[in-house]
């Protein structure tokens, strides 16, 4: 039953994607929006052409590296602060406000500051980290708070210290929540990385997109954007699989 339902939804997904691609193809070939909207086949040809493919993959790897490093740094800091908040509850209001402040600051406004404070090559990583920090802080802290109150009572009555309770109960309970947060954080890390690259990083898809736009290489621009979407989507799918696996393992 469930098996056939997943098959059905997979079929719908494929049909929807094909429909979207055909519409895009038609709009491009019919020049609905003029040369600025090339057909999907032309974008694919540009992407895989020997002139562009090495540049695009090199840039994609640079962006991927920045996004991944940002995800790791921002994510570690988020989890660490959530743990500190849990162990020292009086710190909670302050940490929550700090996280909100980080979230409320528009990344585009931070870019120039980061370039001054860090460097052009580090800005994509830092911006990616800032973008994921809030999402994962909320996921980690709400995940740890969501552990069953009865389980917490049992642990407390067995004389568990706050640290032991964290290790044996709250962190494992938070894992599925963290994976859900990761789904959103993956896209956020790419947004941060590409935006960071706009401020003059030496390499990366953001740089390719910006250059292509300024030189009116419309197809190259679309190819670079497609590459970014593909990477972000792959990350999202990996995070979804991780979430499923963790939810199976760590919830009842």
């Amino acid at each position: 039953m469930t098996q056939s339902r997943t098959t059905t939804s997979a079929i719908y997904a494929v049909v929807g994607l094909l429909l979207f691609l055909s519409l895009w193809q038609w709009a491009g070939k019919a020049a609905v929006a003029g040369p600025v909207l090339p057909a999907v086949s032309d974008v694919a040809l540009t992407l895989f052409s020997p002139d562009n493919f090495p540049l695009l993959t090199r840039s994609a790897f640079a962006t991927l590296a920045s996004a991944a490093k940002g995800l790791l740094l921002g994510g570690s800091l988020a989890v660490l602060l959530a743990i500190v908040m849990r162990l020292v509850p009086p710190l909670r209001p302050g940490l929550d406000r700090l996280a909100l402040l980080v979230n409320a600051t528009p990344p585009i406004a931070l870019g120039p500051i980061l370039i001054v404070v860090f460097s052009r090559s580090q800005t994509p990583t830092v911006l990616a980290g800032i973008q994921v920090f809030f999402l994962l802080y909320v996921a980690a802290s709400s995940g740890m708070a969501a552990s069953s109150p009865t389980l917490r009572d049992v642990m407390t009555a067995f004389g568990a210290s706050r640290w032991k309770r964290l290790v044996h109960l709250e962190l494992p309970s938070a894992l599925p929540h963290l994976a859900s947060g990761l789904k959103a954080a993956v896209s956020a890390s790419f947004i941060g990385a590409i935006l960071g690259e706009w401020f003059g990083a030496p390499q990366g898809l953001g740089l390719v997109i910006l250059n292509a736009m300024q030189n009116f290489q419309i197809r190259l621009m679309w190819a670079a954007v497609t590459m970014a979407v593909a990477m972000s989507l792959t990350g999202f799918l990996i995070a979804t699989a991780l979430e499923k696996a963790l939810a199976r393992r760590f919830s009842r």
Partner: protein
Amino acid sequence: MSGAGIEIRNLAKRYTPRRGVIIEAIRHLDLTVAAGEFLAIVGPSGCGKSTLLHLVAGLEPPSSGSIFIGGAVPRELVDRHRLGIAFQDSALLPWLSVESNLALPFKLAGLSVDRNRVLKLIELVGLQGFERARPSQLSGGMRQRAAIARSLCLDPDVLLLDEPFGALDAVTRRRLNIELELIWRDRAITTMLVTHSVEEALFLSDRTVVMETPGAIAHVVEVPFSRPRTPELLRREEFHRLTDQITLWLQP
């Protein structure tokens, strides 16, 4: 006989959910439980019997009055890992096997896991063959057996049972009562059992306390049946007479 006696003097517990509202969970309560005694507490729902158990477990502080267990306040006993507890919700960690769940009290106490004791307890509650099973793979009755085995892991001075069989069907409940009596007979740990089943209270306890709302003792019944208690007791007429009498007290 083993374990520590419990001395409860002038106990009161009030909650103030919001300004100007005071909920009296326990109005005034004096109670002594002898070392090695099995005490059952019955009462209408909302009479504060679970609150009483929470206070004895040190999960909350009393508003006034005192609780001493073997001369120590509950928190001291908890910090020495000398308290065993089981709730209506088995509160096993869903991501751990039965065996690992029973090893948890050792880990929380910072002790090395006594695997022989864990396996012996698993056998004692009739869960041999399910050592590696996860809680979700067990029936409700089996989960409660595991929870009770876990509460006995560190051979506690005091055992607190809050409706441990409350969510089970009548047949399973009766079987587990018989098993618990058998287990308890060996070690006679000072035990407080909160239950809404008069039959369960009388079958298991040396004394049954009948509470009234809000949080006071209405009657104390010396249970006149000798140990070992067998299923045959459940059919005796005196048993039924006493059950009926207490049930009558509980009716509003």
